[in-house]
């Protein structure tokens, strides 16, 4: 990384301008826990680094009615310290906090996790299940997009030249809602998800699921929003039969590869198992709220 240039603008518009001017070698910088590793290893060519952390909106958590607006470069540790966020979206917070170690948590951001566009990114299935959206800033102004529309292939995003994510928005939600995220790794920490599953549920007063969202990580080129799997839960109390249907529908949604981290067959089976277990946890959380 011999000829790296670095700037740290303080407004979103300056950042967008610089990114556009910098061309294809220009990169937004959040915590750098992916970007710096890739630059060092030579996987990415050196170019212009645009640090987003000096932009006020890019850091911190704000409540907007029942919604939460999270600055794109807010480190994971800040999420874990936010009580209201943890109560409303325990699955999103636990997914983000799985990233790396204590040291990595001090830097790593959700937007970085998302825009690195790895199918195994831990926070993304939880965000997709949460129906989170991104506020995107670019040379032509601002737009909103769903989280699942950002990554289009491993390492590739739908962001246009000069565009970056400024905020991530978790929508307001009714009571008796809960979410959960689980991942499968061969060890207990410091690993990449072989499979990840995020589930987000809302119940009625009788405990019947009225809304469900299921997202699966590392079982396709991008995170999969498994609508048929979610449909298997709606109208049920997450009983055994519903969970079996969820398991089958989640497996049917998978389109994984076999690689050094796991076979396609294994990934598919585990996606069903984790979806089931995450649904059970999310259901328990929803009942308590």
């Amino acid at each position: 990384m011999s000829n790296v240039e670095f700037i740290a603008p303080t407004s979103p518009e300056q950042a967008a301008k610089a990114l556009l001017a910098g061309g294809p070698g220009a990169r937004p910088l959040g915590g750098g826990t992916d970007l710096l590793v890739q630059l060092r290893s030579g996987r990415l060519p050196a170019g212009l680094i645009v640090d987003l952390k000096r932009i006020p909106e890019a850091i911190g958590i704000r409540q907007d009615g029942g919604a939460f607006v999270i600055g794109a470069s807010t480190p994971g540790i800040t999420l874990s310290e936010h009580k209201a966020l943890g109560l409303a979206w325990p699955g999103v917070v636990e997914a983000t906090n799985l990233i790396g170690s204590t040291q990595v948590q001090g830097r790593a951001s959700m937007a970085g996790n998302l825009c690195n566009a790895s199918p195994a990114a831990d926070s993304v299935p939880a965000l997709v299940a949460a129906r989170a959206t991104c506020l995107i800033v670019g040379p032509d102004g601002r737009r909103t997009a769903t989280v699942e529309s950002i990554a289009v292939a491993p390492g590739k995003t739908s962001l246009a030249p000069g565009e970056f994510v400024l905020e991530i928005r978790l929508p307001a939600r009714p009571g008796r809602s809960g979410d959960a995220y689980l991942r499968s790794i061969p060890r207990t920490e410091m690993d990449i998800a072989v499979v990840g599953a995020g589930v987000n549920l809302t119940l009625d007063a009788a405990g019947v699921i009225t809304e469900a969202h299921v997202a699966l990580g590392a079982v396709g080129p991008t995170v999969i929003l498994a609508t048929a799997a979610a449909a298997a839960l709606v109208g049920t109390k997450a009983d055994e039969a519903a969970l079996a249907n969820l398991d089958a529908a989640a497996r049917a949604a998978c389109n994984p590869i076999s690689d050094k981290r796991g076979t396609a067959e294994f990934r598919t089976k585990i996606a069903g198992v984790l979806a089931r277990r995450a649904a059970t946890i999310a259901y328990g959380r929803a009942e308590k709220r």
Partner: protein
Amino acid sequence: MSDVLERRDAAPLDDGHLKVVGTRPVRPDGADKVTGKAMYGADLAMPGMVVGKILRSPHAHARIVSIDTRKARALPGVKAIVTAADFPDLASEEFEAGESAGNLRDLSQNVMARHVVLYDGHAVAAVAATSSSIADEALALIVVDYEVLPHVTEVEAAMSPDAPVLHAHMFTQGLAVTPDKPSNIAKRNELTRGDLAAAFAEADVTVEGRYTTAAVHQGYIEPHACVASYAADGQCQVWSSSQGQFMIRTYCAKVLNLESSNIRVTPAEIGGGFGGKTTVYLEPVALALSRQCGHPVKMVMTRDEVFRASGPTSAGVMTVKLGAKADGTITAADVVLKFQAGAFEGSPVGAGSMTALACYDIPNFSIVGYDVVTNTPKVAAYRAPGAPISAFAVETAMDELAAKLGMDPLALREKNAVRDGMKASYGPVFKNIGYVETLEAIRSHPHYTAPLGPNQGRGLAVGFWFNIGGESTAAVNINEDGTAVVISGNPDIGGSRASMAMMAAEVLGLPVEKVRPIVADTASIGFSMLTGGSRTTFATGMAVTQASQKIVEDLKRRAAMLMDVSVDQVDWVDGVAVCRDASKGKADLSLAHIAEKSGQTGGPIGAQVSLNAQGAGPGFGVHLCDVEVDPETGHVTVLRYTAAQDVGKAIHPAYVEGQIQGGVAQGVGWALNEEYIFDRTGHMENAGFLDYRVPVASDLPMIDSILVEVANPRHPFGAKGVGEVPIVPPLAAVGNAVSAAIGKRLTDLPMAPPKIRAAIDAG
């Protein structure tokens, strides 16, 4: 946490009054290590130093047609470039170096490829430049024209008659008739006893299985690193992290055709070796670069290079057949071991064969080993080289035999255990071994009878390692204030400095804090074999003890002079000279006093001892492991682990426990997740700690170690080597536990979640 069980027969100096040996003082190198002050291989900087880097082969097997370095040489900032042409073309010559015997030609061609590259990562050229980025640019400007050849990475595929042959000069040794065609089988070795066929025919019960282990890396945290400086007058200096500064000197001299007296090697602090730093990769290259440009050259491997071009130990394919009487007496064993050597011959299959049945008294057996070259990095020693691999096969088969006999696995081991006076499967007669005591330590431990829950299983396995002695030098000098310095030539990879200081303190009668142990460079102390074979506390400890004893004799002589009595009137008691005859009214003389007056009694006080230590006691370990398997995900949680080991005498019990815990941790990684993964082109796919999965702290329970002390009378304090035995049993202990938990026999390592889930689903 540890229990200490003792059977003290004969340790000469152990009269029950030890003051230092057996205690747990703070390690003398500890403060530097925890404050970041310790100087590791990459920490040295010198004036005018330049950066050396290596260009590595992207191919698993290829002929080097040409190497064009002109563009790289023209790059400003490039100071030197070397290829095999800058090294002498050595003839085939075997050498003996403790645990790492080998061939000089192979050693040299592994350091720098000549005519042909034999694995992905094989060094092809090296540059030295004024900065790291210029060196990188220069590497990219070197044009190597390769003719890619077919490759083979798997052991059995490499043994097949139609496999691509790595070395046209390799004709299998150890066969009745040397074959007329070259092959990848470097050697066949065989150990036999009795009449195997008859024994199997008469056996009541037999079991038979095929077992495999993957290539695994030693996984030391510190990458290989050195600084080398070649002066205009031919004097060379090397600072490097290794398991033996004398080994580095010898290999540099051989590979570059230099005289040993012209090479001075200073050992850096070492951040882990586990056997993997018993050879050279960088040092001769750095010297060759320095010779060309006149600057000191620093080389530090990346983690990618460590995985692709250093270590690992062999992958293995084994078959074991056991025959027994209905009462559990094993009468026959047939073992075949096929070990991957990597690019050059020299897998540890010999040691794997010798250790395979060493725990058992079996009248009829055959052990056949094959040393097989493959297009993978040349294997290096790894803790008890070979033994964990063959133990995995034999101990898994033992578990199957116990199940078939309906016998408790521990009882089966007890019934067939070797004891003092028995002839070992590898030749000698056992003396002063503590194996049955170690089995007993596990039988009487609460772990052995603790209840298990659902999806949980318990595995037992035993293991053996020879331990070695060998050549060592140590010096002890008394300072003018009565403190002492202990100088040895063995890098401290497992707490040996503490042990050296403790043994000297014990003999001299000093508090251990008054003894400063140092590891000296090759010009400042006499020759010592490298730190390996679990030899340092035994062999170098013997030299330290003898040097200290010489000093005590000298101190008594000097005290006698100062007291004006004859020397036989003086006793040395707790660091003080005492006149036996109280009526003479002589005041006691402290060591400090005698040291202060040394000018009057003959000058400085010091002694050096060089020896070739014999009588290293072999070690045995018995391990018990509980796991829980998540039947849906195939995940294994190691719940509980207890390891008992015969250690002779624990000089510093905490560091002996540390050795046991570390060996178990590495063995658990070997059993569950670690493996070299090659793609179809022979490129290593997981050359980093993200996808080469060593255990992290949260993967392991507290490992309970039981020190069984059956003294080795050949060591002044009864010590046996302890560093290697603990990695021998865990592969099978974990594997047997996993098999018990899922109710199915697993025979292939690593037992990663996909494999376990697939086995469960197979029903």
